[in-house]
């Protein structure tokens, strides 16, 4: 991840039509802020070493 180059506005522009959302100016600014915070959390998470064989946490029980 290159968080410095991450542009939340560009992401919003790209996916708003895909998601069928309409954002007000206020909502857009706050969404961009939350995307930046999430990117920070993801950077930390993605830096963990996780084996290819690792299974996700179990919930579903057939």
């Amino acid at each position, binding site marked *: 991840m290159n968080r410095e180059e991450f542009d939340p506005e560009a992401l919003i522009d790209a996916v708003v039509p895909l998601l069928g959302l*309409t954002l007000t100016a206020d*909502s857009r600014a706050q969404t961009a802020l*939350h*995307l930046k915070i999430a990117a920070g959390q993801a950077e930390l*998470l993605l830096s963990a070493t996780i084996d290819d064989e690792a299974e996700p946490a179990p*919930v579903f029980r057939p």
Partner: protein
Amino acid sequence: MIDELLDGSARAIAQAVKTGAASAVEVTRAALRRIEARNGALGAFTDVTADRALAAAKAIDAARERGDELGPLAGAPFAVKNLFDLAGLPTRAGSKINRERALAAKDAFLVSRLEAAGAVLVGALNMGEYAYDFTGQNAHDGPSRNPHDLDHMSGGSSGGSGSAVAGGLAPIALGSDTNGSIRVPSSFCGVFGLKPTYGRLSRGGTFPFVASLDHLGPFARSVGDLALAYDTMQGRDEADPAQADVAPAPVSLSLDQGIAGLRIAKLGGYFSCSAEPTAFAAVDTVAKALQAERVVELKEAQRARAGAYLITMVEGAALHLRRLQTRAADFDPDVRDRLIAGAMLPGPWITQAQKFRRMFREQALALFEDVDILLAPATPCRAPRIGQKTIMLDGKEMLARPNIGVFTQPISFIGLPVVAAPLWTEGERLPIGVQIIAPPRREDFALRVAWAVEREGVARAPVAKLEASIR
């Protein structure tokens, strides 16, 4: 006498009803009068089920007249966060949108369990919109307030639950906890709260938030009530696919074993940074009372919190996407924009978070081979003022909303059972909580330790001293 009963425990109320010292109708009427007198100031209740409560109380008194055996909570008032289905009410889940839903056809599973034990439902409680909140504020219903200082937060998202129990409106309340929403209001309002093991209590008949992380549990002013409510609510319910298929394991009769045989340690590392000194002092006080000198580390807690944070955003967004598309203006903006951002996050992040969750769980289980109870702060500070946006942690100004749950999120991420126990410092009006964390399915360990700390007088949950005008 009735007022003293309402300030006491649910068990004492049940005993009084069973012996005929008080009738269930007398207790219920008094509880309803209290709610009417105090709720305007506290904002704890959004619905009061007076007719239903009085009908239930009359049935209990009639059963006693007939000589029937009464349940362990006979006549004890209780209330539930308004994400629990209550027959005849819309399950609003703190939202404006949901109150247009069809009325619930039947009660949530846990409500039915408490009523079967004789408890009397008196209403539904305020909460942060769709449970995405740590403050107890609500854009549609107003804030639930901290009974110990009305200018301060109750904590969220089960803010009404904390406020109702601390304010003496009900001895038992139910809430939900996805990232800390039982433990945070317990800490801020000064009551005991139990977040059981993930999958232990059925979530059947409640409005969800994050299926991977949602838990339900009780609040009370004593550990005995907390344990009794928990025991009462256990049982298999096919309506919750995440519920573990394990036999009920009652804990009430084990409380007086106290800490005998338990290995107790404080959590260091992540859990000893980024909080006000009072949060660590509270942990030290509990540790000292328990003669627990060891400090252990649960490594990777910061990553665990990151995983919980991202899973919450994405699963919450998936749940609400249709409403975000069609009713965006009807959301609380603080909730809406986090959900919208969640809808935009890359899928691999969430799979990574779920894989990391399993790894973190294995680390915790390894730690529990050497220790039975972990102690950690519940919140990094006492209840902030309502509307306060930032808190000071380690000399740095931090956003309040995302950081109030900094110590609760890593623990619920892997579903460990926790009792939040409230501590008080002389000269301070507001309490602060300590998490008593146990291995999976060992609620008995956490409750035994909480019981010991309560018996020593270290943790306690008094009814708030409200101003005369709102008593």
